[in-house]
């Protein structure tokens, strides 16, 4: 194999990648194309195989089976230093013995680039830290180190920039700020960013395309709006935001709609939003899509009657209700506080209603708890 660095550009294609460690399969027959110039997020809980996937793309791990192509070049077994791919490591991995300037210049010097000073200065200006060039990494705050790690990678203008939980170590406020900044920098430099995270909000804020991973496989891939609006699996429905999943039976057709029986009450939903394979189905409705009304108030769309308010949390911009339904299930409802109507009280008898087009349908044999477990790590950070 040639020792020269590869200059390939183009889409990243992972083809039937499997990575096993003994009996444990970290990544399971994964096929994925990441288009050139996109901001792509691999989203999933810890242990879902997203970091392993990233490390295989970086060249730090070799797939057990499968191939990785960058454009038309097969890079499956190429050494990391020969790949036109750079990584922003979790906890940054800056070189503690080198100044910020030399940290950023490291990749340029290894490739024998001439105008090191000019390029480093340029990228230091991009991340707005030109005054820190002569400092050592330990003299910088977490947020500053994060930006330097980013600068050290993008200064090489790689075909692909990999970000491994890049904002994980920052506090919430700084993280929000960096999300916007990262998105801006990606547009500015026009590189392909592949971002690995367990934080769904982070993925949704930044990425054009999100692949939700679970147990080594991709559950669903699409734009943030697609995934949120029409999740295909219970895991995606629960991992991205919150969902109410109500068990039902398909009871007939009505043009482009399905008639679904939810515990004896008939509702309607678009056929094309159902992922059910037989008659049994879970009807999914996001909490903010529900409306609550008092008994007797006329409403449009689907309606489920017989609920009563179990719990009320007023949080300013909205009020969150837990509504107990007659079949024993509690559903979550978020109401915007924009109508001047006094909130409902605990114990009020209510109906809930929603637009049929907001309904999504999941297979009846799904585990509706999938993707709901709260990651202790996330709790700690929030």
């Amino acid at each position, binding site marked *: 194999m040639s020792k020269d660095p590869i200059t390939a550009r183009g889409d990243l294609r992972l083809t039937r990648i499997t990575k096993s460690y003994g009996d444990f399969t970290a990544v399971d027959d994964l096929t994925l194309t990441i288009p050139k110039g996109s901001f792509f997020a691999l989203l999933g809980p810890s242990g879902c195989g997203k970091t392993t996937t990233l490390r295989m793309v970086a*060249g*730090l791990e070799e797939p057990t089976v499968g191939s990785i192509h960058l454009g038309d070049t097969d890079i499956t077994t190429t050494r990391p*230093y020969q790949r036109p791919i750079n990584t922003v490591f979790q906890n940054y*991995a*800056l070189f503690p013995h080198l100044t910020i300037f030399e940290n950023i210049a490291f*990749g340029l010097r290894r490739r024998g680039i001439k105008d090191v000073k000019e390029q480093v200065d340029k990228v230091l200006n991009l991340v707005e830290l030109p005054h820190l060039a002569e400092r050592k990494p330990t003299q910088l705050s977490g947020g500053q180190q994060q930006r330097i790690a980013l600068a050290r990678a993008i200064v*090489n203008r790689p075909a692909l920039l990999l970000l491994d939980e890049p904002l994980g170590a920052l506090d919430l406020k700084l993280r929000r700020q960096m999300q916007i900044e990262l998105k801006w920098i990606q547009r500015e430099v026009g590189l392909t960013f592949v971002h690995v995270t367990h934080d769904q909000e982070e993925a949704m804020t930044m990425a054009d395309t999100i692949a939700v991973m679970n147990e080594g496989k991709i559950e669903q891939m699409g734009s943030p709006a697609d995934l949120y609006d029409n999740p295909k699996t219970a895991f995606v429905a629960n991992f991205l935001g919150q969902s109410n999943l109500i068990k039902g039976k398909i009871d007939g057709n009505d043009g482009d709609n399905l008639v679904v029986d939810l515990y004896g009450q008939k509702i309607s939903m678009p056929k094309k939003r159902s992922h059910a394979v037989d008659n049994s189905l879970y009807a999914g409705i996001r909490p903010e899509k529900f409306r609550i009304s008092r008994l007797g108030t006329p409403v449009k769309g689907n309606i489920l009657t017989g609920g009563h308010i179990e719990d009320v949390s007023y949080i300013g911009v909205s009020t969150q209700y837990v509504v107990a339904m007659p079949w024993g299930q509690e559903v979550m409802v978020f109401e915007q506080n924009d109508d001047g109507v006094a909130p409902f009280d605990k114990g009020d008898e209510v109906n809930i209603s929603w637009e049929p087009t907001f309904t999504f349908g999941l297979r009846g044999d799904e585990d509706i708890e999938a993707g709901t477990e709260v990651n202790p790590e996330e709790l700690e950070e929030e």
Partner: protein
Amino acid sequence: MSFPKVRVPYLLLLPGFAFLFTFFILPIINLAQTSTQTPIAGGDTGQYEQTLAFSNYIQAFVDNKEQFGRSFVYATLATIFALAIAYPLAYAIAFKSGKFKNILLVLVVAPFFTSFLLRTIAWKQILGEEGFVVPGLRALNIIGQQTTLTSTSVAVVAGMTYNFLPFMTLPLYASLERIDPRTIEAAGDLYANGLTAFRRVTVPLSLPGVVAGTLLTFIPAAGDYVNAAILGSPNTKMIGNVIESRYFKIVDYPTAAALSFTLMAAILILVTLYIRKAGTEELV
């Protein structure tokens, strides 16, 4: 109980200070006084009086400059060999040993379970005619059929290298172990091949260990006399041997004291220059 807070640190210092004052500062003052004494005219062997004879230093140095030079050459060689052996060893323990890490670390310090003298005497047999080293080297024609290794400078340097190896290995291990493996991955990610990553990241980050290890080897090696006494010959005498014989055999205290001070000063100067050069300001 209400000591003002500011006094507590001084109280904590007190036992150490008292101990060192009694057993280090006072003896060294005594040694300094001895170094400028001359024999009492008509007195017995070992009777000296203070005459501020600083010429003792010059005389002692001129008489023993060969042994001084040899001490530093041997110590330097032993330090280089120990570093060459210990670096790969410490690297393997820190990065490649997996679950055997603790066992290997115990093995590194295992020689300390036996006496220093005993181990050095054992080397005499290892390098002797009845050992396997000399016949082996002869069979491979690496050394001549008549060549022996005992009582040579090779034996002395080999013994010193062996004896100080743990002092080199442990600090090296400690500093290699502290390196975040992701910084080495990051070097690979930034177009450095294995060798370049080692040279540009691993070595600089292990430098504090290199400095500590070489000092812990070089300083005692320069003053050592056991290896030269047991494994060497009169032709391999080091300055430590001279000081030892001046004190205990010839009872020439002033010369022994002057030599001790000269050795200390020489080591101090060399070490200072070395640390300056290595640029590890964090270390001092």
